[in-house]
């Protein structure tokens, strides 16, 4: 693993990567799977209920034509799947010893990177409600800044939000101790 792209300071290391739970991506995958199956079901339906519909004069083999069109459809879904995966995978928070680097990959060509120093953090709240989130340990995390122009950063459906909040608080405490130690 190489974090060169994050432009970390000297001696700064990534402690934790925070990503959305895999269930989010499984949801996308299932939608695409259904879309991939629909043409097959239509073909079966036509074969059973309207077999004459496929007796259309074509210069070539009708089955090959249908296979060609179906392959293009699957290729389209294949590309869509990887676009979704890229958005899911690159939407990430990196927690280092000094800050949180927030990468918000909204669309494939819409990327926002923010830095949040621990001394600017006022509160970290987590929201975990519902049966499935509790069962699979995922929820939303919101970090609020203490500056005048108070901002909040949120990442939804992350794995083990309590653990992440603990890591953020422990790093925040360590940073404030280091800061007060330097001042004494």
């Amino acid at each position, binding site marked *: 693993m190489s974090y*060169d792209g994050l432009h970390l300071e000297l001696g700064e290391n990534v402690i934790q990567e925070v990503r959305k739970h895999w269930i989010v991506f499984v949801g996308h995958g299932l939608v695409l799977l259904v879309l991939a199956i629909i043409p097959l079901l239509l073909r079966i339906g036509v074969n059973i209920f*309207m077999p004459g519909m496929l007796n259309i004069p074509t210069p070539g083999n009708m089955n090959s034509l249908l296979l*060609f069109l179906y392959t293009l459809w699957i*290729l389209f879904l294949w*590309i869509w799947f990887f676009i979704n995966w*890229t958005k899911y995978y690159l939407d990430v928070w990196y927690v280092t010893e000094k800050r949180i680097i927030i990468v918000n990959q909204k669309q494939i060509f819409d990327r926002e990177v923010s830095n949040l120093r621990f001394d600017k953090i006022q509160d970290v709240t987590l929201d975990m409600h519902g049966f499935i989130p509790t069962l699979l340990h995922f929820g939303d995390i919101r970090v609020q800044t203490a500056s005048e122009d108070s901002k909040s950063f949120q990442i939804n459906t992350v794995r083990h939000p309590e653990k992440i909040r603990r890591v953020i608080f422990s790093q925040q405490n360590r940073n404030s101790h280091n800061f007060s130690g330097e001042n004494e």
Partner: protein
Amino acid sequence: MINTDTILPFSINFNLLSYIDSGVLTIILGLFFVVYLIVSVALYYHWSKYGMSHPGVILAQSVFALGSVILFTVAVLSINYY
């Protein structure tokens, strides 16, 4: 058996199929390939620039390339057998 010519108002459009030969299909596949190339370049750019050489990204690159090769091969073969 149901006579689709009498119940489907769009059945007249099926005559268009008689103009679809392997040349037309090759052009369609070629256009699709150009779009695929543009999207692939964008994806590979994101994976290499922001993926941090993560094992998951390397796996995704391989699966994407392998799946694409298989699907384009099937498309070319279906044109050949048309």
